[in-house]
């Protein structure tokens, strides 16, 4: 937002609001990456903001989940305490309430690790998107360090491009959904064998002309499930941030519309509490979205194991 606030001569606030919002929720430009890396197999491997956020999330998940669990396991059979206790409650809830009822008791220990990984990764990626760390760094950089926004070589200025919610990027959610897609196939294959899993896609014992219609419908259904996961998570994470920024932008829009700072400050008495309320809602959304993704993955994997037609 801070870099995006550079005003082109002659353009109004209304002209800039849309661009600023999109700039704030989208990934940073591949032509101005944070770290330049060479092309590999024709793909630019440079690190953009969302790639950096994925790395940060990976480190945070490792520090907050893997390390306490390893410590707990090395202590022996004592009861978990502190953060390990909290993790145990989450693990137990997901195993008993999400995975077990969907995949069944036989496969619960096979699929719980994957679904837990999804849950913690998405939860951390969503949550970190609510922390305006780079905006605060940008303010510090601009007003304390005195670095102008136009200095494109400054590292922190480079970090201000793009949003911080990696799960608001459709490529990230598509990658997660692709894992789910292959998990569905692997789960069906492990439970019934590959050929039987393919046969299980359609109900047995129907007249052959019905299969001409049903087989394409079921094949499309296979693709639709991961697509639902991709769109739902990314759209929900982006939508909240857009609503938040649109509300805050009202201050600048009204100030310009009435040519008065008082109008902008007056609108702030409405838009800031509303933005605060939406931020509160977003905290719930962060958890709900992680939960829904894991629930849907468990349901889809369960459907390929426990075939009901």
């Amino acid at each position, binding site marked *: 937002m801070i870099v995006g606030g550079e005003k082109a001569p002659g353009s109004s606030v209304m002209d800039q609001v849309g661009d600023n919002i999109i700039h704030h929720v989208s990934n940073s430009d591949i032509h101005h990456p944070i770290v330049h890396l060479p092309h590999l197999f024709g793909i630019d491997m440079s690190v953009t903001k969302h790639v950096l956020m994925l790395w940060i999330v990976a480190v945070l998940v490792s520090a907050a989940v893997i390390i306490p669990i390893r410590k707990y396991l090395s202590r022996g059979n004592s009861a978990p305490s502190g953060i390990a206790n909290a993790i145990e409650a989450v693990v137990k809830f997901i195993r008993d309430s999400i995975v077990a009822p969907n995949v069944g008791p036989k496969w619960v220990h096979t699929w719980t690790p994957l679904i837990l990984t999804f849950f913690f990764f998405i939860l951390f990626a969503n949550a970190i998107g609510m922390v305006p760390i780079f905006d605060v760094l940008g303010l510090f950089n601009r007003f304390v360090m005195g670095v102008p926004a136009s200095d494109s070589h400054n590292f922190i200025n480079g970090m201000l491009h793009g949003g911080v919610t990696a799960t608001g990027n459709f490529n990230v959610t598509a990658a997660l959904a692709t894992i789910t897609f292959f998990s569905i196939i692997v789960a069906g294959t492990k439970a019934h064998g590959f050929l039987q899993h393919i046969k299980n896609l359609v109900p047995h014992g129907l007249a052959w002309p019905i299969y001409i219609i049903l087989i394409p419908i079921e094949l499309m259904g296979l693709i*639709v*499930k991961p*697509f639902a996961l991709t769109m739902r998570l990314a759209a929900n994470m982006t939508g909240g941030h857009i609503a938040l920024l649109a509300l805050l932008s009202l201050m600048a829009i009204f100030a310009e519309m009435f040519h008065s700072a008082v109008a902008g400050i007056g609108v702030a008495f409405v838009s800031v509490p509303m933005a605060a309320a939406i931020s509160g809602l977003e905290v719930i959304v962060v958890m709900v979205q992680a939960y829904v993704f894991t629930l*849907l993955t468990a349901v889809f994997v369960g459907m390929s194991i426990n075939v009901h037609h």
Partner: protein
Amino acid sequence: MIDDQDNFLGKSLEQFQRFVRQSGPAAAAAYTLLASILLLGGAGYIIDQYFDSSPSGLLTGLGLGLIIGFYELAKSVFKK
């Protein structure tokens, strides 16, 4: 008093877990219905742009999306 509170909290959590268990298939069916309409409608729209066949591609895509979405919905509703 503490026992009553523990009992209330325990019962509430059990009810919450029950709702979670029951909501899974319904959520999957609802999201699949929406996603199939979006995916196939979008594919139809792209085909229209490419072959300049508007609006037949979009309408066909939306129709197919509805069929697939409702088929998936029916599968979860009429599950044995």
